[in-house]
């Protein structure tokens, strides 16, 4: 056989013939679910910044005469037990809640990723030491650990973010380590080693992109949990301090009035639900675009 051409009998895989790469953001925009969740997230972010200005009433303007009013044209989401406008409070609380969630997860992601990737890639005694530390952190009940941190640093917004960040670090560390371990024994990493590639290049080009999918999903889930953790801490009086509003704080304020004023819990709850859902769906969309296999399918679908 003299066939040196790209052979005819080597089965062409059943994908796109002439491949044209499509920009990532175009693919993201082609998925309606991702677009909707991105729009919601964008809206939430905008509200977080301009909330105090667009709120129709002052956050802490009490009006006891008008306490526990159901939703009406005047008070869209009704009023609470002190007669404060719930719509305004939900708007203003966006900033606090979102900040706590994003900053604490960012802390957890950076610290956890660093610990996990180093432990998984280096291995040996360093892995052992780091993972035992993580185990110890896992063994503490979440609230107890947060309590301890707050007790040392004093309650407040910064402390809340730090506490939640520390509590979620071991989760990220474990996920990152497990994925790193499985990727670093893959033949393509070994090939790189035989080529004399440095550890930095291997980590940046081979390991991180391959563990990104898992971490993105973990991040979007953790953002949701961080919102709830903030609520729990605030309830114990260790998180956001009153009278500053946060969604979680409002939920817990509402629990005494569940029977009489459903609007006090439903609207902050809906805000949490919507934001959490948007985070999760946007995370799914990003993962699909970042995975080349899914990506080819998306690109093929666009062609039709």
């Amino acid at each position: 056989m003299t066939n040196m051409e790209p052979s005819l009998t080597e089965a062409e895989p059943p994908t796109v013939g002439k491949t044209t790469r499509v920009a990532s953001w175009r693919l993201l925009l082609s998925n309606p679910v991702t677009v909707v969740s991105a729009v919601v997230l964008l809206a939430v972010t905008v509200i977080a910044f301009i909330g105090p200005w667009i709120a129709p009433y002052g956050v802490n303007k009490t009006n006891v005469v008008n306490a526990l009013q159901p939703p009406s044209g005047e008070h869209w989401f009704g009023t609470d037990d002190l007669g404060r406008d719930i719509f305004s409070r939900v708007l203003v609380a966006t900033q606090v809640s979102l900040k706590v969630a994003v900053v604490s997860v960012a802390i957890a992601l950076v610290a956890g990723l660093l610990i996990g990737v180093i432990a998984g890639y280096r291995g040996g005694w360093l892995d052992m030491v780091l993972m035992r530390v993580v185990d110890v952190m896992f063994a503490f009940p979440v609230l107890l650990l947060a309590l301890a941190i707050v007790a040392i640093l004093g309650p407040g917004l910064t402390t809340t973010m730090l506490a939640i960040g520390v509590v979620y670090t071991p989760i990220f560390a474990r996920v990152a380590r497990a994925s790193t371990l499985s990727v670093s024994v893959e033949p393509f990493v070994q090939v790189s080693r035989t080529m004399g590639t440095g550890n930095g290049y291997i980590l940046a080009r081979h390991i991180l992109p391959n563990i990104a999918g898992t971490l993105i999903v973990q991040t979007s889930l953790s953002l949701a949990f961080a919102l709830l953790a903030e609520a729990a801490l605030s309830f114990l009086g260790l998180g956001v301090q009153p009278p500053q509003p946060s969604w979680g704080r409002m939920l817990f304020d509402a629990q005494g009035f569940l029977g009489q004023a459903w609007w006090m819990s439903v609207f902050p709850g809906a805000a949490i639900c919507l934001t959490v859902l948007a985070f999760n769906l946007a995370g799914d969309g990003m993962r699909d675009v970042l995975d080349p296999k899914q990506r080819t399918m998306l690109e093929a679908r666009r062609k039709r």
Partner: protein
Amino acid sequence: MKTPVLSVRDLGVRIGRNQIVEGMSFDVEPEQTLGIVGESGSGKSMTVLAATGLIDVPGADVRGSSLLSDGTELVGAPERTMRRVHGKTIGFVFQDPSTSLNPLLTLERQITESLQAHRGMTRRTARTRALELLEAVGIPEAEARLDSYPHQLSGGQRQRVMIAIALACDPQLLIADEPTTALDVTTQAQIIELVRNLQRDRGTAVVWISHDLGVIGQVADEVTVMRGGTSVEHAPIVDIYDAPRHSYTRELLAARPMLGKTTPPVAADSADALLTVEGLDVRFTVGSATGKRTVHAVDDVSFTVRRGTTLGLVGESGSGKSTVAGALTGLVPPHAGTAVIGEQAIFSVKRRSEVKALRRRISMVFQDPFSSLNSRNTVGTAIAEPLRVHRLADGRSARDHRVAQLLELVGLPTDFARRYPHELSGGQRQRVSIARALAVEPELLILDESTASLDVSVQAKVLDLLKRLQAELGIAYLFIAHDLAIVQQMCHDVLVMRQGRAVEYRPAAELFADPVDEYTRKLLDAVPPEHPRAATP
């Protein structure tokens, strides 16, 4: 003429808008073996799965008919009929023996499952039957083995157990889907022998699927050659070998690995030594439940690779041949021994710059074309990696140019640089791996079973490519393989390894003419001969 065990007429499979299989018709006669041959993706497994009602792809639409000898129609049959037929009338053996057995159950439980389900046997009678079966498939100490778990068996033994399970209820038809592809050549020969003997004793009809016409020649009475979902030729095996009508059949015949077909161009005797390995010794410490234990993977192996020539390193899985490659590329630390490439000692380098320079001189192509490329990088990025690392062809445009050059060198279109690995076929990926290995202009290329997981027709083309590259670039190869037929095609010298030791090390021509070691002879015997067995009664 007897009624066929399975009679398939005009079978077609559609998945979504793709016609996977079209217009397949064949009969499987009792006591006969039908071979179905074709490369991966040709629809051979799909045909058989559809004909036996095992297809479980969502949205698959099966047309046509498939009749058992008792008149049962299998296409579109209800699940109850299927349960009655599978295991009882039709037995199955699949490709990968390591995943087709349940790791949590003893062999006895796995063999007796169908006996209890179909024959209503009690556990005790089923156990007796299981014991007979294990003895029939040639498992030593069958009595003791009944209570072992799959991980305690070797790959070949597991495949024997799979056959025992398939035959438990004395089925009329045995479906064997690439049953020997994942096995060593010597084990492959044993399994072929076993199936033939069992067939003779029990009169079972067999459908044997393979991509290798050489293997089919050893088992089949009739052959269907498949390509692109349809049958291109159907004839008795002897006719297929002696008078192939379709050009594709001829291509498959030419591609099968065969002894005495070709030898590599003669290398100048004066070619000086490039790599010299002396007394290489590698040990691993393995921790297990019973404490630590040392595995002696490579034991006192010495060899020389001459410039521009190929040294074949032959042996079965576990013989230590990949460990030799690992030691040379720095993946595995050696325990003792020396290795020198040019003037440079390999095992004693410590300085980073020296290690890096060394990695430029030896590069390696791995076995699995799927996992040796990072699925997140384009082909271009993969080939450019060694260029970046060693600062060759610096600058983006220079690098792109060099990548295009390398793609052309391995016979791929240059626009492949923008594709991702999963958009390529196995053979194309392996070409990419070769291009990447060549990027650093190495003096020695280690090919670790680099063609073993490719279809024979694709393998033949990749081997041609390797020969051409050696002629053009004058690289030396360390060619690791288990198949002596392709080693003869490629290698100037051969080193046969067994259990970490070198058992025979001689020039290829001498070794193939007059093998000295018993183990080498066994390997040679395992290569399917030129003529089908049916032609030599």
